[in-house]
């Protein structure tokens, strides 16, 4: 069974540009989470989808970040326009059912804004 996959694995963009990160959860997983890790800090929650619906987006930093999950399958996280402080590792995770015991992480997308 394929795990959670994320694309791209690394991205370097200039300040002001746009980047779109993609996450493909494990097949059949209704719950999809986005997290961000800034160097030296915790893996911070960004938002949670249940199927295509945003269940909790309390962690989204500001309106430069837009997450979508069309059709309840893969999800995208767009940063537009990117700022220097957006640099970090963006992790995606998924779980099988609401209340599932554990979540499974992807390998992360490293974003560097220069």
């Amino acid at each position, binding site marked *: 069974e394929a*795990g*959670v996959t994320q694309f791209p694995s690394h991205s370097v963009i200039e300040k002001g540009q746009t980047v779109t990160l993609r996450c493909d959860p494990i097949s059949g997983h209704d*719950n999809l*989470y986005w*997290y961000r890790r800034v160097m*030296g*800090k*915790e*893996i*911070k*929650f960004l938002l*949670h989808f*249940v199927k295509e619906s945003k*269940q*909790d987006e309390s962690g989204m930093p500001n309106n430069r970040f837009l997450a979508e999950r069309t059709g309840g399958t893969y999800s995208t996280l767009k940063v537009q326009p990117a700022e220097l402080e957006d640099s970090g590792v963006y*992790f995606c*995770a998924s*779980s099988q059912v*609401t*209340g*599932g*015991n*554990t*979540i*499974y*992480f*992807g*390998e*992360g997308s490293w974003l560097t804004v220069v």
Partner: protein
Amino acid sequence: EDKVVQSPLSLVVHEGDTVTLNCSYEVTNFRSLLWYKQEKKAPTFLFMLTSSGIEKKSGRLSSILDKKELSSILNITATQTGDSAIYLCGSRSLTTSGTYKYIFGTGTRLKVLA
């Protein structure tokens, strides 16, 4: 605001040593505590602890939850170089909408020297 705090931030030991990693939490509607190991890429699941005082073991790793102290420890005995990784602690809590939210600490970076 909910938070998970881990200590130490990093640790360097020699092969054969025993290490104890600490995790404390302040989380509303707490349900479970989770431990993950992150080597090069995606964090991989180690343990989920829901009941206080019941130790979970997997080989040389063990963990226990203390709900009174709002904390957990992860023990690794007879450490090996392959144990070198970031160990993440996270909490699972129930939201008002009936879904589960997961938040994580900074992680403890463990390096085991040969």
